[in-house]
């Protein structure tokens, strides 16, 4: 059932009355752009909180004997740091924030498919976040973000609170995933076939089923943990017939796809930013689109590579190792496509582009160490050491967080209507880039020398590189501080953003900044890919977007 502009009575023509009053407009809003901004702000608030926890960890590790916080508090701090960063910062920002703000604009829709559901998804999230942090008040979980039983069965009462909070975040993610799938299947502008959809939307389309399916599996695991802790139902306690390994299966069946939930949308964002600032059509559009799908699919078949040391049957290790290696193939397709896009392009070194280039470099590093880890013999050596910590921080900080900054510099003018300060952006970039490498590169060395993760004290021989790592983390934090200053200053005093400051070609740049609440006066017709920089724009029906003419479609 295609939506055509002629059917002014359909969804394309249906415009809700503009909400009036502060509460309906900015608090309980059903406008996807406002909800996205709410996600972004909430996510950044949690980034500050979880970042402070990270600094507590690094300060503790400045000295071999620790001493900054007590060992019990240290356990709580790294557990909440990991949980908050994964579930309250990265996942909500890459899907909830940028997916919400940008995806409907890019496919030429007026809103997501279920605006009220979208509002519900958002409001579950800050509540769950507060629940997660409030577990500090009642004895926070101490078994790391993975909460392996039996340790998680022994942790303080906060562990149940943790499980409930993550369950709620999962509900929010699942609803968002459903919403996005339906939006992209049903609400694309006329002429926008799947093979003309911008790559950011393709990435969201690959991510949404992961949100929908994998998160539910985690919900089951969390519910089981909650029941076991609160009612003594024997799921994981081996003395009553349960199996602690089962938690690991259920947890990683979610959490490996979650890795792709966290990074696939940013792959999509990078695929928008690189062609825009290289002024060149993206290389291998279809390959990038399909590789997202391949990564999403393969992500479900590799979870047990996290469990090579958990007593997994040896005949299972080999297939999981090989399947994990194969994920490097679609990922490699993306990276070569980006490099090929840059090749011979006229590269504009804006802050956004610099973060995008840093993403390519840092994620390649993190991805390659991931291939190392998939090899069973090597994994047995470094499992549970700082090598792992270094690896996944390269992927999550060097990948997802760098991608988040690249996307923020790229799309901030669109949704906020003001330009971010480029000088501060460059300062932010260099501090952050140097900080990330200084923090996480030495952790690989520490890990291969044998320093275990999650320890509050360590052997004095590891002191030097731990100090380098901690100083690096301070530099990184300083960079993020510059970013927040930049955002706060630019929100008020930044240069007014033109509709299309970067000369980009996707639909969201063809309308005013910030867009009207109804997004498009006319739903445009699409007849081509958005990346052919030498060609005229492949859209029809956008002539009045930048004029003062009133909205056309009949408002109800």
């Amino acid at each position, binding site marked *: *059932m295609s*939506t055509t502009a002629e*059917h*002014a*009575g*359909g*969804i394309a*023509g*249906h415009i809700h009355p503009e909400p009036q009053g502060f509460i309906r407009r900015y608090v309980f809003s059903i406008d996807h752009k406002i909800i996205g901004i709410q996600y972004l702000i909430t996510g950044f608030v949690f980034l500050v909180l979880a970042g402070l926890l990270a600094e507590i960890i690094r300060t503790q590790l400045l000295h071999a004997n620790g001493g900054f916080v007590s060992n019990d508090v240290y356990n709580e701090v790294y557990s909440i740091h990991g949980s908050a960063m994964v579930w309250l910062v990265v996942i909500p920002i890459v899907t909830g924030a940028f997916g919400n703000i940008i995806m409907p604009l890019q496919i030429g829709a007026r809103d997501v*498919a*279920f605006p009220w*559901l979208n509002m519900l998804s958002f409001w579950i999230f800050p509540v769950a976040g507060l629940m997660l942090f409030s577990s500090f008040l009642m004895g926070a979980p101490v078994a790391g973000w993975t909460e392996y039983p039996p340790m998680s069965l022994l942790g303080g009462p906060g562990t149940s609170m943790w499980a409930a909070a993550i369950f709620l975040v999962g509900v929010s993610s*699942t609803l968002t*995933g*459903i*919403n996005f*799938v*339906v939006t992209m*299947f*049903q*609400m694309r502008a006329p002429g926008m076939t799947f093979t003309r959809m911008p790559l950011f939307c393709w990435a969201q389309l690959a991510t949404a089923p992961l949100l*929908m*399916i994998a*998160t*539910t*599996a985690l*919900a*089951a*695991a969390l519910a*089981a943990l909650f*029941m076991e802790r609160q*009612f*003594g*139902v*024997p*799921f994981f306690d081996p003395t*009553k*017939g*349960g*199996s602690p*390994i*089962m938690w690991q*299966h*259920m947890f990683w*069946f979610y959490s490996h796809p979650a890795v792709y939930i966290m990074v696939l949308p940013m792959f999509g964002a990078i695929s928008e930013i690189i062609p825009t600032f290289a002024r060149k059509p993206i290389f291998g559009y279809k390959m990038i689109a399909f590789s997202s799908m391949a990564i999403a699919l393969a992500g479900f078949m590799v979870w047990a590579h996290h469990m090579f040391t958990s007593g997994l049957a040896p005949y299972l290790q080999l297939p999981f190792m090989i399947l994990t290696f194969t994920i490097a193939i679609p990922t490699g397709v993306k990276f070569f496509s980006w490099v090929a896009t840059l090749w011979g392009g006229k590269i504009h070194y804006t802050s956004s582009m610099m973060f995008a280039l840093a993403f390519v470099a840092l994620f390649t590093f993190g991805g390659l160490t991931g291939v190392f880890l998939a090899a069973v013999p090597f994994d047995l050596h470094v499992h549970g050491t700082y090598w792992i910590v270094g690896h996944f921080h390269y992927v999550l900080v060097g990948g997802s967080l760098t991608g988040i900054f690249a996307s923020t510099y790229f799309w901030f003018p669109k949704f906020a209507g003001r330009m971010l300060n480029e000088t501060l952006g460059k300062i932010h970039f260099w501090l952050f880039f140097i900080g990330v490498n200084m923090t996480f590169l030495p952790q690989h060395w520490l890990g291969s020398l044998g320093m275990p993760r999650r320890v509050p004290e360590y052997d004095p021989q590891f002191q030097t590189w731990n100090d380098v790592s901690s100083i690096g983390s301070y530099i990184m934090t300083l960079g993020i501080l510059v970013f927040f200053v930049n955002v706060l200053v630019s929100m008020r005093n930044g240069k007014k953003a033109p509709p299309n400051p970067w000369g980009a070609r996707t639909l969201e740049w063809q309308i005013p900044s910030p867009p009207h609440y109804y997004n498009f006066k006319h739903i445009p017709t699409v007849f081509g890919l958005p990346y052919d920089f030498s060609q005229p724009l492949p859209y029809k029906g956008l002539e009045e977007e930048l004029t003062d003419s009133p909205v056309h479609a*009949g408002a109800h």
Partner: protein
Amino acid sequence: MAVATLPHGAAAAHGDHGEVDQLYVETRALRLQGFLLFLVSDCVLFSSFIFAYLYMRNSGQGWPPAGINHLDVAFAAVNSVVLFGSGATMHYALENWKHNNFGKYAFFMIATIILGAMFLAGQAYEYTNLYFKEHVSWAGSGIFGAGFFTLTGMHGFHVTVGVIYLTVLFLQSVHGVYTKDKYFGLTAGTLYWHFVDVIWVALFSIFYLI
């Protein structure tokens, strides 16, 4: 041709109903997909617990566990037939609504609700028997109790929600919320109820038959 005999939305798609119907046809497609995806994710939730149960069963202390050998298969079969029968009556309720036959619709709808409630009563009876006579409990009977009561309890919760849901739908339809070509709520209710039935096919097989 009488509109009532047309399948849903077909009249509207031809454009002879004007603007609102075009909106209905399009939003109906959205709601249908969204609802199906919700059922998919719900199905994953059940599958995860089923996986967990089978995993524990195959890696634990041997099967069947000592001391638990009194599941009443005959009673459960009757109860299952009651639930499956409610699926069939629900199907005919929707069919009759589509053919604008309100009397038969009401009969089948009420039958569905009653059968659903009967299933719940049967499950309550079974739980009571297990708990008081066989001393099988949720937390105290190892992995069997954990798996059985968690999964059938989750399913029972879904049936309870379904009975309430269908009652609300029935009251709505009595009050004229749905018309002969706009009845997505009833379609969604039917989908949900079928889903609950089909989940029970899996649970019945797992707990009583293998």
